[in-house]
């Protein structure tokens, strides 16, 4: 059973198909890089995987169950375009809040631990609205990893990160993959993503134009896939 299975998913906005018959699989421990132009449907697909919206046809299964199941939601960690933490609360308050929502046994402890792992322990009591951009993004990453999810869904995680945040994220992703967790990330930053990826899928206008294991060729020349399977 794959960790993430997308089975014949179509997504309609009104009558218009934004995703057409998408079939993808990511085994446990895999890192799937979703690449594609703007508007190809990467964000739409990720949000369906995370359970934010429903497919018009077909289904997504995370570890064999629907993403919206309560138990499955505990297993998913999502990092979207926004940082999804509250400006008016402090870093530790934010993480404790989410730790409680995810039903963690020791919420404050888990929050403190993840502040350390993302290098934010010194600003634990600072309000997020006073954080620098890089700090905000590291906190977002902490929130996504906090509840020890087995499937991580990341939407363009490397975009607009500063160097320190990129390093933190890459380290955390490598650790997660080593622990057998599954990562699906959409990306424009081909280089950082392809280094970590074990599999690649190219989306073009809502269709899967290519899906397969990541090869050395791709790492050497990231644009190669677009040239071969994409358009223009």
């Amino acid at each position: 059973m794959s960790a993430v299975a997308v089975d014949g998913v179509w997504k309609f906005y009104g009558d218009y198909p934004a995703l057409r018959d998408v079939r993808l699989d990511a085994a446990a421990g895999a890192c799937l890089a979703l690449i594609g132009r703007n508007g190809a449907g990467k964000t739409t697909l990720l949000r369906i995987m995370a359970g934010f919206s429903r497919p018009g046809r077909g289904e997504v299964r995370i570890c064999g169950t629907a993403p919206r199941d309560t138990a499955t939601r505990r297993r998913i960690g999502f990092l979207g375009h926004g940082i999804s933490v509250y400006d008016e609360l402090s870093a530790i308050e934010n993480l404790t809040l989410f730790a409680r929502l995810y039903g963690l046994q020791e919420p404050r402890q888990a929050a403190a631990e993840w502040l350390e792992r993302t290098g934010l322990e010194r600003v634990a009591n600072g309000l997020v609205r006073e954080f620098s951009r890089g700090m905000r993004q590291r906190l977002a990453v902490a929130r996504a990893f906090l509840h020890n999810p087995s499937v991580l869904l990341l939407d363009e995680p490397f975009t607009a990160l500063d160097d320190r945040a990129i390093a933190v994220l890459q380290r955390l992703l490598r650790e997660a993959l080593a622990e057998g967790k599954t990562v699906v990330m959409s990306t424009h930053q081909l280089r950082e993503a392809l280094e970590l990826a074990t599999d690649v899928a190219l989306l073009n206008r809502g269709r899967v134009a290519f899906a397969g294991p990541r090869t050395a060729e791709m790492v050497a020349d990231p644009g190669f896939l677009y040239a071969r399977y994409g358009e223009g």
Partner: protein
Amino acid sequence: MFDKSRWRDYLLHLFGAAVIVILARDINLIARLPQDVNQGAIFKIIFFHVPMAVTAMTAAAVAFVASVLFLITRDFRYDALAVAVTEVGLAFLAGNLITGSIWGHIIWGQWWAWDARLTSALVCWILYASYLMLRRAVEEPTQRATFAAVWSIFSFIDVPIVIFSIKWWRTQHPQPVFWGGGSFPHDWLVVFLWNMLAMVLLAIVMTTVRVRQENAQRELDSLRRTAHAM
């Protein structure tokens, strides 16, 4: 051989013709009826005033059912039905309000009195008008249909509560009732029912036309999006 859409057109035209015929006959009959003892010719407005209200209420019920069905099946045709029947219902309710107002002006000299039934009709009209405003405020079609369905359910549940509260309010602070004082002879009942039928048929015709327009609009939107994507 059996062309479904052509037969649907025939049926629609048949209904439309029936409406015109019945209405023409009714208006002729009604004009010939003797005037009401107390209120004169204007009392005959009841032949339209009440059927419009009944049609509007039926429309609300149909909208409720269509909304529930949409939420269950996610079939956009139910959404088209919901919006069409709500718009038609609103038109009939407006007719009810206008005829009520005219009646009040002729009999009581005021264009509006806070009569229980008319006030309830007004509140319900505003209720469903805001449903249409909600639809206009949501761009994305699936979201629009979902939100509208939820709101239609909220609105329909309120209708009996509104009617009851306003009635109770007027019981506590009584005011002259609009058509108190008129009598309704038994032989008028037949004409009344024919007019009722005409109103319902008219509503069905209007709703059908609107549903078609809605379905066509949906196709157009989708083609437009596809064109943009190219």
